[in-house]
């Protein structure tokens, strides 16, 4: 599936952000995996481990993948509620006219880095 392309993008973003922060080495990368994207976490982790070798700053980086639940905001009552399954509806009033607010992104959230102290 497309986990390999996703891994390439995550590595590119992490490497770019490390360069911007003046970091020579990245220790940990926190990645939020939106439930809606149906990403195979194991496959994504495999590709990240396999390809981090190509990025000198990321060679020792640990990738922390955390599933991000889907939350929706109701267009009728305005409440934001977490969803347990497909067929999203407002957890407060039951209305099905809702907008997804979280859970649809694959995001490089944060990193622990070592900056060279010159």
């Amino acid at each position, binding site marked *: *599936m*497309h986990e390999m*392309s*996703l891994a390439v*993008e*995550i590595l*590119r*973003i*992490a490497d770019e*952000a*490390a360069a911007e*922060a003046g*970091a*020579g*080495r990245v*220790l940990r990368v926190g990645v939020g995996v939106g439930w*809606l*994207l*149906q990403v195979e976490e194991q496959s994504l982790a495999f590709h990240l481990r396999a390809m981090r070798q190509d990025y000198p700053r990321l060679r020792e980086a640990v990738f922390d993948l955390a599933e991000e639940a889907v939350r929706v905001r109701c267009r009728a009552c305005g409440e934001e509620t977490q969803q347990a399954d*497909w*067929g999203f*509806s407002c957890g407060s009033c039951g209305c*099905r006219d809702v907008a997804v607010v979280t859970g649809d*992104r*694959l*995001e*490089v*959230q*944060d*990193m*622990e*880095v*070592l*900056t*060279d*102290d010159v």
Partner: protein
Amino acid sequence: MCETEGTGHLHQHQHVAVHRHAMEANDEIASRLRRSFAARGVFVLNLISAPGSGKTTLLEHTLAQLAPLRVSVLVGDVETERDAERLRSCGVPVSQIVTAGTCHLEAEMVANHLPEVDQRELDLLIVENVGNLVCPTAYDLGEDAKVALVSTTEGEDKPLKYPAIFHRAQVALVTKSDLAPYLDFDREALFANIHTVHPGLDVLEVSAKTGEGLDRWLAWIRAQVEAKRAVPSGV
């Protein structure tokens, strides 16, 4: 502050907030395409299904009937030009995107191949995605509507097994309706499963073989093209 690996170099631990979306590069190209389509009033469809659900056959049986709309087609496949060759006989510009292993189309591929089929006053661009129900769903191509196709032969639980595409689609097509009588096809169950994932989604039943339901599909497309044209350009 710490000394690492006895190198004598001092390193500083730092926490860096990033918050960048892995699809950002694709999404940026897709947004650019969407703005340019909007400015020209071009309506764009992204057809997504499992391999063999009938995307190319449906286009073969409907492209000619879309006249006088000016239509162009981009068709994605992992290998070969076969689908494009099938569609060229319909008299519309067609370009094949061979992805060479990639299981989905990306916005950049659309941007690269668009000049091959672009017409001065294009009304409708149809993109036939690579046959796959998972990966194409996540890649925005700048389209106005994703169309999820599922054939009567695929099993009624398809929407529950591959919910994301049905969740994101603006319309679902149940293809090969002519085969339903020969199968243990449970129409009510398929509709119920689609609507579990996407309440209220428009579902059209079509057969490219007998022509059943094609009128409604063509009418749906024409209405969308009209609506897009009516929106002032540059939005």
